[in-house]
């Protein structure tokens, strides 16, 4: 396989939250067009990894580095990372009362692309993306994530990803709370973005990976990647759990 350009390079990353070390020397490189899946038990540090890449202020990098498109990330604010093409699909997206989805999507798309979008062009783009995700237009007049079911929140995250066209997509447990049909639709969205981006999928389960074929699967234990492989590793983890990896530590 021809390797695309390097999108993300993480070297020996150590991260703490309120003085507690969560990531303990994590190294990972993602190229354009690659799908990486990270699996691990609760508390292994998976969501911390996604949040620290996106620049959440609660996380402190104590050692190591993150490079995005060959440039160090540490000086970029969160919104600058988004404008540079990074996207995080949140495990628990925030509720923004009073802000309609349609307004939010248009403004965020304009902010990321840094261009004024004509109402007509944006409407068409939005309609196509929503059609692909089987989303009703009534979504647009609802307030962002306010009263949304778990599945609706995840669909909205994927809709944003389609509109923002990221170069790096971080998907934090995007499959949780989805029924089988919704899972297929969400996977379709990820597969649309994946060829033009580097993708990092954080998941507990094999089921999403039945629809989104990862190039690499990583097992994470206690803040480190302890095993990497192809899609077969996800199958093995699903069948055998993580105990066999702990025995190797």
């Amino acid at each position, binding site marked *: 396989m021809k390797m695309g350009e390097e999108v993300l390079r993480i070297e020996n990353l150590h991260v703490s939250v309120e003085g507690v070390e969560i990531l303990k020397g994590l190294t990972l490189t993602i190229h354009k067009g690659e799908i990486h899946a990270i699996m691990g038990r609760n508390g292994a540090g998976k969501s911390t990894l996604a949040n620290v890449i*996106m620049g959440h202020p609660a996380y402190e990098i104590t050692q190591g580095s993150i490079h995005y498109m060959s440039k160090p990330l540490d000086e970029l604010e*969160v*919104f600058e990372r988004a*404008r540079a093409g990074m996207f995080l699909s949140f495990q628990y997206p925030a509720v923004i*009362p*009073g802000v309609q989805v349609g307004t939010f999507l248009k*403004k*965020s798309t304009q*902010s990321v692309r840094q261009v004024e979008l004509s109402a007509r062009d944006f409407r068409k783009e939005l309609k196509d993306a929503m059609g692909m995700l089987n989303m009703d237009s009534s979504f647009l007049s609802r307030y962002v994530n306010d009263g949304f079911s778990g599945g609706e929140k995840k669909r909205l995250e994927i809709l944003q990803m389609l509109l923002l066209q990221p170069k790096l997509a971080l998907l934090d447990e995007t499959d949780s709370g989805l029924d089988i049909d919704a899972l297929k639709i969400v996977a379709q969205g990820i597969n649309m973005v994946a060829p033009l981006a580097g993708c990092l999928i954080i998941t507990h389960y094999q089921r999403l990976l039945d629809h989104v074929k990862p190039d690499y699967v990583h097992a994470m234990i206690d803040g480190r990647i302890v095993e990497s492989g192809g899609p077969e590793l996800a199958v093995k983890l699903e069948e055998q759990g993580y105990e066999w990896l702990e025995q190797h530590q």
Partner: protein
Amino acid sequence: MKYADMAPPPRSEHLWRYTPWHWMHPSDIEIIPDALPIRFEAQEPVDMNTNICVASSSNEYARVFLHEVAKSSTIVSSSKDNELMNLYAVASGHVACSHLHFNIKHSVTILLHLSGEADWCGLHITSKIAKNLNVSFAIVNELSNTTTYLECQDWDIAQDSSVEFAGITLGGFRTKSDIRSNLNGRGANMTQAISTHGIGQRHSDHHIEIHHVEPHTTSSLSAHSACDDESHLVTTGLLTIARHANRSDAGQVFRNLLLSPKARAESLPELEVLADDVSAAHGAASAPVDENQMHYMMSRGFSPAEASSLIVEGFLTAAFGEIKNPSIIDAVRTRLTVHLECHIKR
């Protein structure tokens, strides 16, 4: 009762605790100042007449004062041909004051836009709503940032009539608003939503009373205040349910968004429930902008100023979540968006 015969209200009174009378009077509190009338215009032809202002039917201090200052009463009557009324009120000169009465015998939507550069503006709105009507009313205060504004409103709602009330305060330097509603007949309903944006040194004090006089009456009140800079926003409520007004249902929620360390917000919802078989609830909360909301929006490309602006807009809009009338919602959202684009640093 004459103003000259009345003693000024003490600050120990709930109504005047945060905004004493001498702050609201245009000059020396013993004086009845000369005033120009507020100029009322309608976008479409409406039945509107102006008469000499009569004495207030209430003995409440501010109402008595407003009626003695106002030279005129403007009476707007609904008609079956006017389902939507766009009214513009312009206050100019040193002191501007009027009484505005709505005589409502048909279902109607009224949008009242208040603006002007007057140093002091006083307005008493009264309304009697006949039986079996659906009425929606919005008042947008976009007075000059230097205007002192005294407002009283009195709404009498008859049996099986429903009122949606939306109020936005985006202007004025100092505002005292006293809004009272009486649910006088079975099945009467009042849904009230009020948003206030505090910028600069604005002091805005809303007092909202809802009185459930008869059984089977319902009300809800949602008041949102976004407090920036050195503003001081006050919301006090008084919800009463009379002894025989059983099966009434009432709720009040006051929320404050604190955007600056020097901004202050006070919320005091009060209940007086004398009936046994009712549902009544109230609550108040004050908090700064939620960090998770900010992070989420910034992760979508919004700068901190853009994210904060949109969160404030959403917060102020969310007060109107129970209002169903699309004309009211459109008007409120449009004015808020325009106002915030002008006033919030991006």
